[in-house]
């Protein structure tokens, strides 16, 4: 579905991605783990078009039978309309707007009014709390609710591929579990997920496959279980001694 080939990217003057290659297949959950500053977030933003890569290719095929397209130089809004939705790091809600307006902004590029209504319904089924709080301003929600809102808002563009940046950031363990269960459910309903996580244990449990990044390169890859059992990964990211 998504193929990143030898991507090189700079943030300002800093050389962040030094040749990242990875692949996401249809209906998979793929995790991207690694220390701070490894380039995980930059990898996501090169995919969604927020950052331009200097070298390399990013190829995307929304459905198994669709034609593959090179999205390396495509503007961000077009990438969203092709079916990639990016949830940036740190619960970026529109705090002054209410929950309902936040969700509607997620559907900004869509014109099919009725389908938008039924998707609002779908999102409220996934996260009933959002339906209950629809008229509250997003800034007044708790951290967990804001995270749900951000995910729900990203789903409103009907993505084929959801890019998630650290959904567990700053959330209580119990809430992280709730969120991860939701991700599993969203994935089961047909959305492919590429997940960036610091919480390596949870991420490797959830993901079918995973990549480990270090200083701008992918250093390891394998199934979630393989990596969870890998000695180096256990030492570096799972706290084993």
């Amino acid at each position, binding site marked *: 579905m998504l193929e990143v080939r030898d991507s090189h990217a700079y943030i300002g003057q800093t050389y962040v991605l030094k040749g990242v290659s990875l692949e996401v297949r249809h209906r998979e959950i793929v995790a991207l783990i690694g220390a701070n500053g490894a380039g995980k977030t930059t990898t996501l933003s090169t995919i969604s078009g927020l950052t331009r890569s200097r070298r390399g290719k990013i190829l995307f095929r929304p459905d198994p039978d669709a034609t593959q397209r090179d999205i390396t130089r495509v503007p961000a809004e077009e990438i969203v309309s092709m079916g990639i939705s990016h949830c940036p790091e740190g619960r970026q809600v*529109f*705090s002054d707007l209410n929950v309902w307006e936040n969700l*509607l*902004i997620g559907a900004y590029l869509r014109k099919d009014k009725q389908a938008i209504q039924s998707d609002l319904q779908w999102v409220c*089924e996934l996260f009933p709390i959002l339906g209950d709080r629809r008229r509250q301003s997003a800034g007044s929600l708790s951290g967990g609710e804001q995270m749900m809102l951000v995910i729900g808002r990203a789903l409103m563009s009907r993505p084929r591929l959801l890019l998630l940046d650290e959904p567990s950031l700053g959330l209580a363990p119990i809430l992280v579990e709730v969120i991860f269960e939701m991700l599993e459910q969203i994935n089961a309903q047909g959305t492919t997920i590429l997940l960036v996580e610091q919480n390596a244990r949870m991420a490797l449990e959830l993901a079918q496959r995973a990549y480990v990044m270090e200083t701008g390169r992918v250093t390891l890859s394998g199934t979630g279980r393989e990596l969870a059992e890998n000695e180096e990964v256990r030492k570096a990211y799972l706290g084993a001694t």
Partner: protein
Amino acid sequence: MGWNRLKWFFPMLILAGAILVFILRSSVNDYILSIICFAGINIILAVSLNLTNGFTGLFSLGHPAFMAVGGYVAAILTFPVTRKAMLLPALPSWLAAQQWSLLPALILGGLCATLAAFLIGFPVLRLKGHYLAVATLGFLIILQVLITNLESFTRGPLGLNGLPLLTNLWWVYLWVVITIYVCWKVKHSSLGRSMLAIRENEMAAECLGIPLSRTRIMAFALGAFFAGVAGCLWAHLVTAITPTSFSVIMAFHLVVMVVVGGSGSITGATIAALMLTSVVEILSPLEENLGAYGISEIIISIGLLLILIYRPRGLFGTQEPAFLVKQRQRVSGEVGRSLSYQNGKGGTS
């Protein structure tokens, strides 16, 4: 029921305003009428400035520049041919032969202001915050210099005087209604939500596929159109226009109106424009009697400080008064209720 009430509320309000205009025109003297016209023009300016400074979070000080564009374009078009031959002998003959009525001149003036907004929007709207404020201020100054030096069209620093007095309260009222209506529609549309989204969180907005620069330019250009129209109305009310008519002080006053009303609130901008205009008019006789010129500026500045301290988000914040938007919330409320009902059903089955 609430639906019906609101469906009739706005047309009734417009009608009530029209009746008020009618009564005022037959009962009040010309001086007070012209003050009311200025208040109306200020409403147009504050509400349209709200599109950029309020909704989209672009701090622009360039509004008077767009007024100047609109004002000069319309003034040249409506000037009687005979006077034009006298005052502006160097005008190209095709332009010298024009003598338009107010409405087409207003619209063309507005469109020229929009065009100017597009031209400066592309380079300038890459900037943010203070940088944008400085850049738009620069545009205002460049435009003043340009007008001063384009003597064959503008008579330079002398300005154009003796314009036909075409603006009356009906025209002002018409454009107040159009401006508020358009901005209201924009605010409650998907375009308006995307503007607010950019103001709230640019990165998240970009992630959701909102084209940042296109939306910014839209807000800027739409605001400029109404500023251009307001400039024409202003010029044909004062009946004179010079390069310094549209000044930095004016930009400051307009920004104050938006801040006092609440960035993003149309109701707030309208009320603040009315308040500020009347405060200035009430205080100016006081200034003359006491010989204390500038006291109105001091009072306005103190008022602004007090509002920034005690109500930093302005009188209304981003919101409109609840009774005006109930309709929309009620509809979505119904969707929400049917949703939670279906949720319950889904949960038990």
